[in-house]
């Protein structure tokens, strides 16, 4: 529920509804899911549908299944250290497919909404970046749409991408399948995108390289799936590792224990996070994946990820437990504390 913001008791959408976490979930639960869930004829056959609120939907198709996902992207600034909105739009959708187990995407769509006054050179640069990222992920962008809005009616460039991919029916992976005993693996350093973007947006000049990690992870997920049994998977985007793991723990009704010292965070990102008062574990990654792995397979999966570019820093960071169901606990080396789901946009502290 949102608080009343006017005397007439009307409620309004606020930025908090777009920031993931509880506010967004209640918006979806109250306004969206009840309307869309169950309509159409094939709902009963859907393997993963809207109510699951996973990274994509999975529908039966022939001997396999079709995974479908969509995402809209707005980002400020549109060119940032390590990437741009175009690369983000392609990688985001490829990664949403990949974490459902669909690592060979069939096609992407590209819907552009441009604001009057945006330099065409910017649009060209963004489109070139989309094309290059799609090539590197091995997926064509095969249909799309373009709209131009008046000045002030949309913020610069908005890109919607959707993606489809076939997957073996045995292969779909959800974010709800964690079992007690599973190892938790992250594919690399945490918080790179969120901290780099916040620093770039606010013009902070931190010593050391702060770059977004935005990249497709389908190759990395592919070798991981071949190396062992992945029980649950997610790309830790908005809300970062904290959001992803809390969602996974909640959906599977299990607890997760993390070892702080095992979680890879680069030195510059950790330092910038300290200065800003923002936890790198609570901000977005755009080229990483977090997975639950059958404990017997954990070392094999880890070794496989290590061989893929971008997976060199992958680590086992914790394990799934029967205790404290739905919650994530971190051993800090000093004591234990919760890692909660972040709510609202991260805002730097006052002092």
């Amino acid at each position, binding site marked *: 529920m949102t608080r009343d*913001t006017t005397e007439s008791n009307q409620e309004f959408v606020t930025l*908090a509804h777009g*920031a993931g976490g509880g506010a967004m979930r209640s918006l979806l639960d109250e306004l969206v899911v009840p309307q869309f869930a169950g309509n159409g004829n094939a709902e009963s056959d859907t393997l993963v549908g809207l109510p699951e609120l996973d990274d994509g939907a999975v529908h039966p198709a022939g001997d396999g299944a079709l995974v479908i996902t969509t995402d809209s992207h707005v980002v400020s600034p549109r060119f940032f250290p390590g990437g741009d909105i175009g690369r983000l739009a392609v990688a985001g959708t490829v990664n949403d497919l990949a974490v459902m187990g669909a690592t060979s995407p069939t096609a992407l769509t590209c819907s552009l909404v441009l604001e009057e006054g945006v330099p065409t050179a910017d649009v060209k640069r963004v489109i070139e970046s989309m094309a290059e990222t799609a090539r590197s992920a091995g997926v064509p962008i095969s249909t799309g749409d373009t709209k131009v809005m008046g000045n002030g009616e949309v913020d610069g460039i908005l890109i919607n991408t959707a993606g489809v991919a076939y997957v073996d029916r045995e292969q779909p992976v959800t974010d709800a399948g964690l079992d007690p005993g599973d190892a938790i693996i992250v594919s690399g350093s945490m918080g790179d995108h969120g901290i780099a973007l916040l620093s770039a947006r606010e013009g902070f000049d931190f010593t050391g390289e702060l770059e977004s990690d935005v990249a497709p992870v389908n190759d990395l997920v592919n070798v991981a799936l071949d190396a062992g049994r992945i029980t649950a998977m997610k790309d830790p985007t908005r809300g970062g590792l904290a959001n992803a793991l809390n969602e996974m723990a909640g959906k599977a009704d299990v607890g997760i224990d993390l070892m702080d010292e095992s979680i*890879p*965070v680069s030195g510059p990102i*950790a330092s910038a996070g300290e200065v800003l008062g923002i936890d790198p574990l609570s901000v977005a990654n755009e080229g990483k994946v977090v997975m639950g792995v059958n404990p017997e397979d954990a070392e094999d999966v880890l070794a496989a990820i290590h061989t893929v570019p971008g997976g060199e820093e992958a680590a086992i960071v914790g394990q799934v437990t029967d205790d*404290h169901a739905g919650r994530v*606990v971190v051993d800090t080396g*000093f004591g234990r*504390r919760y890692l909660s789901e972040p709510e609202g946009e991260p805002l730097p502290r006052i002092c």
Partner: protein
Amino acid sequence: MSETEPLQFRDPEQAEQLADRLETLMADIDEPVSLMHVCGSHEQAIAKFGLRSLLPDGLSVRMGPGCPVCVTNMPEVDEAVAIAEQGATVATYGDMFRVPGTKKSLADARADGASVEVVYSASEAVELAAANPEAEVVFFATGFETTAAPTAAILDADPPSNFSVLSAHKYVPPAMEVVAEMPDVDIDGFLAAGHAATITGYGLFEPFVETYELPIVVGGFEPIDVLLAIERLLEYVRDGKAGLENAYPRCVSKAGNEQALETMWDVFEKTSGEWRGIAEIPGANLVLRDAYAEYDARRRFDVEPLDGGPDPLTEQCICGDIMAGKADPDECDLFGEECTPSNPVGACMVSSEGTCKIWDEYGGHPNL
């Protein structure tokens, strides 16, 4: 976190030795001890590193009125909202953005069409004014000495004429006195904030120690800093002594930053003011002196604080008791239910310096 250089102040082995030392001291003292810190960053450090799970039974470390956002009074937020609704651009720190006023927060005002900008510093607010000469830019200035000094420096440097300050700056030492005098608060010692003391110097606390006969130790914010300061405080308690000590010498001196202080007192004067949920505190609010009247948003805009009473939910909120060290967040009926970071009832659930927000994020003393 593997790639971060391990800091000397983050050595778990040293922490364990200090924890053993705290056990010994508490055994010697042989009765419950209650310490108070007055800084959200201390609460952050304690919760983030799970330090409460290291503390011996009988030792309680509570947060006092140490979150500048939390103690900003509702009518002060109302003033900022009213100024934004009159058409000025209100610039403020991110932490203040969602703090509920009587009717609405600045975030609500922005959703309703007002111009509200989040800034990271007073100088950024001045830059905003310089870049938008057609707009009136009002910096809603909150925070203790650490942010009051930069606000003062900005006003001292001849800012543009379309810039003004709505000061909700607060001054911590008088609030510590009020808490120490509260009849139902039983504090055995204070862990003073290293940030604020960097500006004011630790010598400032000498009269307090003499008057209230309580120990004060100034502490830093790394886990070892915090444990070390607690150890020093417990030694005073064991010896039944008052005293003042600086356990954060790498940042804090006795005199503080004299130039910053001079500017701060040049620009601001102390006045009596209500700290949200706590009390009217003499000398704890900082307002602009007459010499800076032209930059005082209260004089530039005609703003009457709202009346009609706050949201009834806020009457159930126990932020005041929490900031006076009388209660923990999980003793509040609203905590985690009606009051969450995305839908805060009390200010303590808004700021990253607020006890309730910190406990929501990390758990205060989770039973793990």
